[in-house]
């Protein structure tokens, strides 16, 4: 309902003074914690930032179905299989909510899908890591969804109404994802030595990539300050990362597992954990497309899109035929 042509947002013919006044009024609304809605005036950069962020977020949900979908046929029990199907279905739903929110900004679904499939758009680097064992499914729910929740809860109060509303729905469903993951880790860590071993290995594999999910250090973050002024972003990358570490370390301890960071220690004075430096070279490489599964993930999406083309076309043709029939009958 909110779809609006992007070309309407080109350079305005009104004087630049008007533009400044509009921008001031816009910022004042944000400062008053008012929500911006699709038909409201907004700076072109606010729109562009949101389209980029929301669509990347949507792509991440969609690509995020792949590493876990990989284990649906091999889940250890029927209950675990049902849970995993429900979780993966949720991820698809989250992608759909978010694409819907992005579309209110005047970009079409086809454009967004095209950006993902052509490799032009980014998605969360975390999904370019493999899931070799069942314990990885536990670690993803616990750590990856845990980190995602940390990032996403503040987005429920984001200044852009449709994004905030989509995030409320996402967050409501996300807690189940994290808890089912921790539940898998709990069972494994209380199981045989072999089960405990795969749980530890999965923690070793996912710990650092999970910390990378919060993005670059604040000092190196390109979009941060503007996004904070516009209240798209409420907390800095480093603040959220710290919070995640402080929440997660005791949970690992309860499992009897070791966080793979020799520098990790509790700082009594600051009442928080100190931890080692992230391998930013690895982060950059995965982001650039050189992670362990980048090519595989994109190939899977392209394949799914191509294989589904006949279904989309058939449904369109059927709808068209029905429309003609009703038209003739009338």
């Amino acid at each position: 309902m909110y779809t609006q042509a992007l070309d309407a947002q080109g350079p305005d013919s009104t004087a630049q003074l008007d533009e400044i006044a509009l921008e001031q009024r816009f910022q004042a609304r944000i400062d008053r914690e008012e929500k911006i809605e699709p038909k409201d005036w907004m700076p072109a950069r606010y729109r562009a930032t949101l389209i980029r962020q929301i669509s990347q977020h949507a792509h991440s949900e969609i690509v995020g179905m792949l590493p876990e979908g990989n284990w649906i046929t091999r889940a250890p029990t029927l209950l675990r299989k049902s849970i995993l199907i429900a979780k993966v279905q949720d991820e698809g739903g989250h992608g759909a909510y978010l694409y819907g929110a992005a579309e209110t900004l005047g970009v079409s679904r086809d454009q967004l899908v095209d950006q993902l499939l052509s490799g032009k758009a980014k998605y969360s680097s975390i999904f370019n890591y493999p899931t070799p064992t069942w314990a990885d499914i536990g670690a993803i729910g616990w750590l990856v969804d845990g980190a995602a929740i940390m990032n996403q809860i503040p987005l429920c109060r984001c200044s852009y109404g449709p994004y905030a509303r989509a995030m409320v729905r996402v967050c409501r469903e996300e807690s189940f994802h994290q808890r089912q993951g921790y539940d898998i880790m709990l069972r494994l860590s209380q199981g045989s030595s072999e089960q405990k071993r795969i749980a530890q290995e999965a923690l070793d594999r996912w710990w650092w990539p999970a910390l990378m999910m919060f993005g670059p250090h604040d000092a190196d973050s390109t979009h941060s300050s503007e996004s904070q002024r516009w209240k798209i972003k409420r907390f800095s990358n480093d603040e959220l990362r710290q919070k995640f570490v402080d929440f997660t370390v005791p949970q690992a301890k309860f499992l009897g597992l070791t966080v793979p960071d020799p520098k990790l220690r509790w700082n009594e004075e600051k009442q928080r954990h100190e931890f080692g430096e992230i391998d930013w070279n690895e982060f950059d490489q995965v982001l650039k497309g050189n992670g362990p599964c980048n090519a595989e993930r994109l190939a899977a999406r392209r394949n799914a899109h191509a294989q589904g083309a006949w279904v989309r076309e058939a449904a369109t043709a059927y709808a068209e035929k029905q429309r003609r029939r009703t038209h003739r009958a009338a």
Partner: protein
Amino acid sequence: MDERQWPLYEVFIRARGGLDHKHVGSLHASDARMAIDHARDLYTRRQEGVSIWVVRSTDITASEPEEAEALFEPARDKIYRHPTFYDIPAEVKTL
């Protein structure tokens, strides 16, 4: 880019019997029947509804933000439309 993208539908859900249908979001579908099916999968995975309405987004006419003042401002000074405007003596009951 496929020019024949499925149209956008707005989805309204009645959460429980007795409540209004409320807008929950939008989705693409080839026709209204598919929109209902998709809405069921997308918006009622956890028993969030007992009834679904879908309507083509292009069939909705919305007021413009610029009209807000003209449309809604006149109601602001008509406080006599609210029952609390009237001071009724305490002795008068059930009014």
